[in-house]
């Protein structure tokens, strides 16, 4: 009763209600205006903003930015969104606004091509040409950075896919880094007998499912791998079948970790000698070093030897890219920084932070392990091949990675896995070509 009476009393003073309403309205407008005025990407003199999806690299960007500032007058201001999926969505949307960040971190290959074809990225062909003149890039890298002949990205780093191993464990069992396929098999046999799981292989996290695929196919035939990822060869061809047979054979022999092994536990498993060889991007070196092992001393790395000795040596590489949005708030500054990113002085600071390699062949990595591999790759003219993840229309890669995950659990045979991948490839490549047309 009291409350009803109260309501009647309220209604006799409509002004009071109106005040409340007006207050709520004003508050809402103020809040919306406040939200709309986000100024993280606004011009800040002497800096360029850099959107990225890895907050742990912020320190490295800041340090490299200090070097860039000496050359261009602009430091780097990292803006991190630690969730990769949300980062992708936010970046794609923000590129269409007038508040685009000055530079963005993106994946190379078809991810970059998909973004470039929206017309929202700046053409960096002239920057690339200048880099080529100075010898700061290798011609092999250009394809993964371009779309329809023009360059839209500058390589952020260049990692190799390598097998990390515990030098102490290898010494204990009288093993050395294998230089031939037979030596690799020998190592696996010895380790297995000693109760150590020879190889890390997993589909947890989805994308690691293609690590062994790209590795084995490229080591069976690097030319075939290059044709396969450009849609010119078939997944059902004998080379791919041979690769999956080897893979299945390794699994049947118990040479691989369970398919739900968590790669985050890889460094610890390597240190304690529970696993023998850990196939992963060379950027993992930082994580292994974090367990207290010293690169080049306590752990080292090798690139998988080719299956046949006569086959040309190759290495799978991974490059993130820096791109400049067409509507970058400080466009000129961003272009200047893109033009100096691969300067050896900047790369020195950056790769020392990453403990990984630079895409600039004249930049010498501080990490002895990477320095050794890079020197050998240059000297022996290894074929550099792009990682599978960026080497096809995103839908194709995603679907085929799921198929490989299924293969790793034994749910599908090599033949049926490859058939499924082949049928997806023909559909997705046709769709990509149709969209291009």
């Amino acid at each position: 009763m009291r409350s009803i009476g109260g309501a009647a009393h309220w209604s006799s003073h409509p002004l009071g209600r109106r005040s409340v309403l007006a207050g709520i309205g004003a508050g809402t407008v103020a809040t919306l205006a406040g939200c709309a005025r986000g100024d993280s990407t606004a011009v800040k003199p002497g800096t360029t903003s850099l959107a990225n999806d890895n907050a742990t690299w912020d320190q490295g960007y800041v340090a490299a930015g200090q070097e860039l500032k000496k050359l261009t007058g602009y430091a780097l201001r990292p803006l991190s969104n630690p969730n990769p999926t949300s980062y992708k969505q936010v970046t794609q949307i923000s590129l269409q606004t007038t508040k685009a960040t000055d530079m963005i971190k993106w994946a190379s290959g078809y991810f970059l091509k998909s973004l470039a074809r929206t017309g929202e990225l700046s053409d960096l062909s002239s920057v690339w040409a200048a880099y080529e003149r100075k010898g700061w890039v290798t011609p092999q890298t250009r394809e993964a950075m371009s779309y329809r002949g023009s360059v839209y990205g500058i390589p952020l780093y260049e990692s190799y896919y390598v097998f990390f191993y515990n030098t102490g464990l290898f010494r204990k069992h009288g093993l050395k880094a294998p230089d031939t396929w037979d030596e690799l098999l020998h190592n696996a046999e010895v380790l297995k007998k000693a109760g150590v799981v020879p190889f890390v292989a997993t589909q947890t996290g989805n994308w690691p499912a293609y690590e062994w695929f790209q590795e084995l196919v490229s080591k069976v035939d690097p030319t075939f791998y290059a044709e396969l990822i450009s849609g010119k060869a078939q997944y059902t061809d004998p080379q791919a079948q041979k690769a999956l047979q080897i893979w299945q054979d390794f699994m049947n022999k118990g040479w691989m970790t369970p398919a739900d092994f968590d790669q985050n536990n890889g460094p610890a498993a390597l240190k304690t000698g529970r696993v023998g060889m850990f196939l992963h991007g060379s950027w993992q070196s930082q994580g292994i070093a974090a367990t207290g092992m010293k690169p080049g001393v306590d752990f080292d790395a090798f690139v998988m030897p080719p299956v046949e000795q006569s086959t040309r040596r190759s290495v799978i590489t991974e490059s993130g890219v820096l791109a400049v949005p067409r509507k970058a708030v400080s466009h000129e500054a961003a272009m200047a920084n893109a033009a100096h990113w691969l300067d050896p002085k900047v790369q020195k600071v950056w790769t020392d932070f990453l403990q990984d390699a630079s895409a600039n062949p004249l930049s010498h990595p501080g990490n002895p392990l990477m320095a050794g591999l890079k020197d050998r790759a240059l000297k022996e003219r290894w074929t550099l091949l792009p990682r599978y993840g960026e080497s096809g229309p995103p839908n194709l890669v995603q679907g085929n990675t799921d198929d490989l995950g299924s293969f790793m659990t034994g749910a599908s045979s090599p033949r049926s896995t490859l058939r499924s991948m082949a049928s997806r490839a023909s559909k997705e490549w046709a769709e990509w070509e149709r969209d291009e047309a």
Partner: protein
Amino acid sequence: MSSSVDQRRSVFAASPSSPDPRPVRPTPGQRPGRRIREKLATAGFLAPAVLLVSALLLLPFASTVYRSFFDDRRISGFAGLDNYALFLSDPALTRSIQNTLMWVVGTVALPLLLGLAIAVLTHTGGWSRVARLVVVLPYALSGSAVAVVWNFVLTTDGAANQMLKAFGLDSLAQGWLLEWPGNTLVMIAANTWQSAGVAVILFLVGLQTIPPETLEAASLDGAAGWRKFWYVVLPQLRTVSVIVVGTSLVNGLKSFDLIWVLTQGGPGRASETLAVSMYQETFLALHPGAGAAVAVVLTTIVLVASWLYLRRQLTPKGN
């Protein structure tokens, strides 16, 4: 429901001694300007809620329905029901429907039976409080945290297999999350571990509302044990059961977090439910049209299932 509201309205309107001082219709003496102001004020107070629901729920839903009729090519064109036809042709989506059905059955039946059993067993007795707390505690944890804990248990190198091996049961050790349908079944079990707690709470509340006189009368009439439970207690828990089944049904249909953390719908999309497929298609496979179709189908199933169920079960009297 509506009939009871109508009844109440008619009672108030007919009664001359209605306690409501507000007139049902405006008195002739009231000024029209004031009436308009009052109506405007009412609309103003309703507006934030209406706007929020429209902007955050109805508009996105309408746009999702619209998007589902367009294909996923670069320049999207009208595709009719093609995205919906994927449910018949795409094995991943067919598997997703199978999994969703398993989740619905599992998440409805298990919490209902376990919740009821635990509530009845811990309703009385000295140790009941502790037991109740232990059962209810997981409900306070977030789905993701529960998934992380179960991940430690269920991976091939995890606690479950280590325990089996410690007891010499090596042959039973397996990749719990790697093979279908085993992975879906263990995830349903993990989900039950968490969600049974809320069913227990609801059934305990239900048990406490049963008048002691009824139970006493039943005892005097010679009913005891199972017969008393089946014929006297259980019928009085009907409303609670309706709520438990209703919420479990919706939770089962929209299961996401546990699956995402444990398997990400894998391996090879084998453990996806419709909610995971929706995310997978939209954000990972970059098929927003197909993702929208999955979202529409899922929303329709949830709404229709809830409506049919609650309409049948909840009578105007609420019993």
